[in-house]
């Protein structure tokens, strides 16, 4: 891979748990605990995992919506993890986000036109007339009539609202868009429309996506590569085909076996991990997955496995996997 658009190394987001009385730090929630990711221009990386595994926090901390407590984020070669807000501004134009809940992500007191003009106002692009034209163009791009600009978000359906959310993300012509479960709040019949819209826009505009999702069926449609997260860490990264047909990590295998039909025609014995997902405030030592892993050995409880390359572009963090 040439220089990746985005390169994340050892990303950490730790939240302090404080005592009620003196606000002393009495613990840490390791929501993101050393994540490595890479996204090339124009490609789609899917970030999958169960709810609570830290995938949304990872996405939001890449955009610095949540402050990372450690690690590095390089965007187009520039380290931005510790940039002050002023120096971050140019990168805000190049990285955008589409949120999960299209009802909470649009300001109910603003017209759609106001919502879509905001990016231009913030970055002082164009005058009022120019902005109105841009808003109309954006609406057409996502398949909505320009008249929609005069209406308020509550007058639209969930799918239409998500189109508005996508239009806002595209306003500043970003290179990377993070989709935080962009279709999981929508009706199944609408999901495909939105997915197809996002794929079309990717092809037209050369966007790179990070698609955060717990839905493997969606992932199998959109992803070029897939990263699987468990309890704040990436356990396996692989190209889409390799992940669906040749998953190596026991957790990935369990995840795939829980999906009714990840890929038509393929059957797999269901492996259900034992017990509950441990709390990120108190993760198990060694490999985070070992208490629930059917194959765990003594070493798994002591030492966190480093990712090993098992095939080109396919890395697995498991002691039991040989390169």
């Amino acid at each position, binding site marked *: 891979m040439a220089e990746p658009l985005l390169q994340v190394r050892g990303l950490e987001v730790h939240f302090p748990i404080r005592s009620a009385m003196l606000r002393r730090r009495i613990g840490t929630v390791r929501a993101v605990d050393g994540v490595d990711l890479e996204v090339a221009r124009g490609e789609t990386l899917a970030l999958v995992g169960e709810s609570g595994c830290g995938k949304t926090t990872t996405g939001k901390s890449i955009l610095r919506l949540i402050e990372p407590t450690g690690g590095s984020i390089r965007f187009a070669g520039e380290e931005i993890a510790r940039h002050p807000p002023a120096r971050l501004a140019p990168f805000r134009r190049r990285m955008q986000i589409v949120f999960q809940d299209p009802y909470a992500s649009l300001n109910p007191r603003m017209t759609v036109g106001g919502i879509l003009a905001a990016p231009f106002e913030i970055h002082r692009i164009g005058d009022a007339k120019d902005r109105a034209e841009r808003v109309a163009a954006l609406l057409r791009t996502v398949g909505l009539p320009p008249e929609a600009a005069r209406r*308020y978000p509550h007058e639209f359906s969930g799918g239409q609202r998500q189109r508005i959310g996508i239009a806002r993300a595209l306003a500043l012509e970003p290179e990377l868009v993070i989709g935080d479960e962009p279709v999981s709040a929508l009706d199944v019949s609408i999901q495909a429309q939105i997915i197809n819209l996002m794929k079309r826009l990717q092809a037209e505009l050369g966007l790179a996506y990070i698609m955060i999702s717990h839905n493997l069926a969606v992932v199998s449609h959109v992803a070029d590569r897939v990263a699987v997260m468990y309890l704040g860490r990436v356990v396996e990264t692989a190209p889409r085909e390799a992940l669906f047909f040749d998953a190596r990590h026991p957790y990935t295998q369990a995840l795939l076996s829980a999906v009714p039909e990840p890929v038509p025609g393929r059957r797999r014995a269901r492996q259900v991990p034992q017990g509950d997902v441990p709390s990120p405030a108190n993760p198990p030592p060694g490999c985070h997955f070992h208490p629930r892993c059917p194959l765990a050995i003594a070493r798994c409880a002591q030492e966190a496995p480093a990712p090993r390359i098992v095939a080109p572009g396919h890395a697995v963090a498991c002691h039991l996997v040989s390169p």
Partner: protein
Amino acid sequence: MSAAVSAPEGQLARVWQRFRRHRLALAGAFVVALLMASALFASVFAPQDPTLLDTSLRFVPPFTDWRYPLGTDELGRDTLSRLLHGGQVSLTVGLVAMVTTVLTGALIGIAAGYLGGIADTLLMRFVDTMLCFPQVFLLLVVAAFVPPTLLSISLVIGLTSWMEVSRIVRAEILHLKEQDFVAAARALGASRTRIMVRELLPNAAAPILVAATLKVASAVLMESYISYLGYGVQPPLASWGNMLTNAQGYFDTVPWLAILPGAAITLTVMGFNFLGDGLRDALDPRLRMDP
């Protein structure tokens, strides 16, 4: 697109429907409108000059002389004209005090709620501290310290009653700022000021509007208190509060002089209170209190 083309004023229509069912609120709105009109056109409606003395016509009882529909006071001044001009004073003070209260309260509430951390702690401790003092005490002490003009009275009332508003606004902001539309604005690079003013403030408009209405009522009440005690509006300018003070001296013989300004205060306070209550029920069904 077809499903989305519902009535654009859907929200407003629903609010109006809920408000209309609240009969007391409608009455309140009517009273408030009437008071505003009479204060605005006080000099047109007033049959006499409110400061005109005529010692030959002292204590004319109401409804006996068509020139003095509501009678005259101890100096022979026309009561109706004094009530109308007093209303002008009361409503002016009430509105200016309300604006002061709401601006201060909303500003502090938004800053505390959105900035969080140290700023929040300090601001809210300040609010707690201010709330330890009975408002009338604070009001009277400061009112006694500054020369009483209409503006100073309004400001003093406003600056001693913003604390509740800041708490209401802060609570609203704490709830709003976790919403994704705020995260979206941050992702676009919006400044804190822009997020507070453009994204958060309009969403807190409903509770602020309700608080503002109720604050007019309490400000009118406070003005009449301190004027009654001699630290508010000064004679010869008529205010309902200082009309009451004057009337107290002739209370056992000419009660109507005390009844009329008191009734005017009560009517005004009730009007704004009922309107505020109705607005709260209509705008925010969560806060509903009465059947």
